[in-house]
């Protein structure tokens, strides 16, 4: 066990997978000697060389497109988008090809690739660097979307993502990259994609979140317990697509109340899908309207206003109170 930041944990996952499997190739901008702008690939160029840690030209579409070619050939490319805000230039490659290759070829061709991308706000970044657009990917049939919430599960999920036979969008919350450290075992540890996790059991209401929003959600749960003696169940999604509906529904059947927290805009977002699944699965168990605490349906403002855009503990607690108080 060693204490690691999420950056170090992701680095460990990549290193260990590359040591095990020579089909694992990294490609992206500045991931070589520079180790990536967030240092996730630090030291990997030195260890594995430029042939497996590939610095690419500034061409997102090419990075994704090449990954598709490599994957079809039988490699397991892990490409890095420098910021998720730039991934849209590779969007059509994922939408038109990565997501469909298996389906179009009726299983003959597979695209076992991972696209890593830092997302989300909270680090006072300039514009185009703080978006949270996971819904785009989750809306695309054929893709899987994974978003870890801390060093340990980031490492375990990245390993699963690399080994997954299908294309996986792996969103990494910048705000978590170095926010805190966690014991991460040296020996291999992987987490099943498609499984959410109850990080804190409770009876009074269910709080559903993921990525960077998990911490404020947990803080809110603490406050609810201390101030109101309310025991909230907190669920960390970990995988957005495919969504672990069963776990969510089971929890809400138990609590009858749900608060969904994400920093992405509200409309047609993850929260909307989760809420619908809950209504489909637990309608007659609901005691109160489902609450969504999300970013607003605006462009995420430049960082001077970022704090008021991102869901915070108080906003989450208030939402929890609304669900608890509505009869």
């Amino acid at each position: 066990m060693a204490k690691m930041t999420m950056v170090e944990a992701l680095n460990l996952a990549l290193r260990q997978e590359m040591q095990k499997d020579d089909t694992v190739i990294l490609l992206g901008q500045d991931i070589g000697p520079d180790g990536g702008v967030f240092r996730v690939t630090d030291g990997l160029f030195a260890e594995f060389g430029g042939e497996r840690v590939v610095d690419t030209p500034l061409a997102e579409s090419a990075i994704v497109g090449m990954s598709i070619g490599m994957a079809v050939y039988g490699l397991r490319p892990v490409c890095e988008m420098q910021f998720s805000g730039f991934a849209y230039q590779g969007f059509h490659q994922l939408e038109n090809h990565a997501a469909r290759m298996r389906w179009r070829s009726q299983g003959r061709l597979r695209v076992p690739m991972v696209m890593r991308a830092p997302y989300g706000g909270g680090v006072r970044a300039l514009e185009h660097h703080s978006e949270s657009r996971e819904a785009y990917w989750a809306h695309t049939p054929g893709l899987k979307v994974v978003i870890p919430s801390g060093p340990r599960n980031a490492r375990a999920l990245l390993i699963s993502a690399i080994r997954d036979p299908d294309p996986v969008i792996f969103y990494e919350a910048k705000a978590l990259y170095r926010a805190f450290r966690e014991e991460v075992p040296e020996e291999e540890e992987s987490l099943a994609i498609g499984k959410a996790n109850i990080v804190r059991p409770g009876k009074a209401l269910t709080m559903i979140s993921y990525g960077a929003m998990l911490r404020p959600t947990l803080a809110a749960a603490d406050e609810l317990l201390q101030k109101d003696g309310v025991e909230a169940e907190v669920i960390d999604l970990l995988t957005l697509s495919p969504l672990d509906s069963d776990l969510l529904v089971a929890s809400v059947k138990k609590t009858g109340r749900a608060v969904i927290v994400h920093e992405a805009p509200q409309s047609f977002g993850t929260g909307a899908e989760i809420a619908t699944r809950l209504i489909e699965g637990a309608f007659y168990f609901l005691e109160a309207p489902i609450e969504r605490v999300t970013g607003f349906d605006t462009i995420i403002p430049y960082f001077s206003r970022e704090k008021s855009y991102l869901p915070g503990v108080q906003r989450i607690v208030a939402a929890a109170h609304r669900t608890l108080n509505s009869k």
Partner: protein
Amino acid sequence: MGRSPIDPPDPIDHLSILDEHGSLDTGLEPNISDDIHLQMFRAMLLGRRFDEKMLDLQRQGRIGTFPPIKGQEAAQIGSVVLLRDSDWLVPSFRETAAEIMRGRSMESVLLYYNGFNEGTIIPKGQRDLPMSVPVASQIIHAVGLGWAAKYRRTDEVIMVFFGDGATSEGDFHEALNCAAVYQTPVIFVCQNNQWAISIPLAKQTHSKTLVQKASAYGMPGIQVDGNDILAVYAATAEAIDRARKDGGPTFIECVTYRIMMHTTSDDPKKYRSEAEVEHWRLKEPLIRYRNYLINKNILSEPVIAKLEEEIKEEIRTAVDRAEAQMKNLGAPLDMFDHLYAELPPHLQLQKEKLTKELANSKGEAQHG
């Protein structure tokens, strides 16, 4: 300090060996065995006849929309013929002849244009990608494949097809750039058929040629008479040879012409003159090649007549088999297959929903 001309990129050649009048540059004539010649001619003829057949079928409503290839047979066969089974073909959507030569069955083509997913199945052992509709998006896949082939220390090459329109897409440029940067073994075969639907080349680019774009990426390029199969063959042989020797990518611009409409649902009369089409008809590749082979005594009228008969028969049986196949295809539930390695829970549910729905409304949701 000062101002001085920089070294111009390597000069770009235009290659023509056999022109529309049948005159031959024997100095450049590639050395091709009779078998290969027969193979190529057969493939071109099959491509042509199958294209014509499909047009009939489309007009009879027996298949859906499709993009004819008429006039581009040489530019396709002259290059593809040089690929090994271990090599890769990354087609666009107007390379039926090339695909068939690589092993795609005519049934598969017919199924595809009749709206059956089965039409994009790649036969086992065939290292090709299915045809790709979003213009230029497939080009970059070739670079990825090439990168992997190189990483695996093979001498495989990847041949990617695209049209003149594609050269305006970002992916075209990203692909050529990356291929050159990584020196991947990719042959970029541009089918410059002068028209992207209704946009003539002049409106597509202000460049004098398309091939000159290669220079910008530090990549050798050559422009060939795309209707001169000997030129196409020679240029491709050179490029493939270079690629196998780790000499990196090559850009080949095949100057040819889309004699037919963009797709069967398009009416070219709206945007181009019959005169122009006529002008190009005279340059079309099949006759030219036919005469060349006859002159070389590789072909003779009776042989050709026999060949025509064979091909006609092949196509008929293919159509029959395809149409027979279609009767037992198209179970809607198949749409859930092959999306993921394992069907995730929410799709399982949706599949069950549709299953029930189908049970209730017999046949209603059936294909047709």
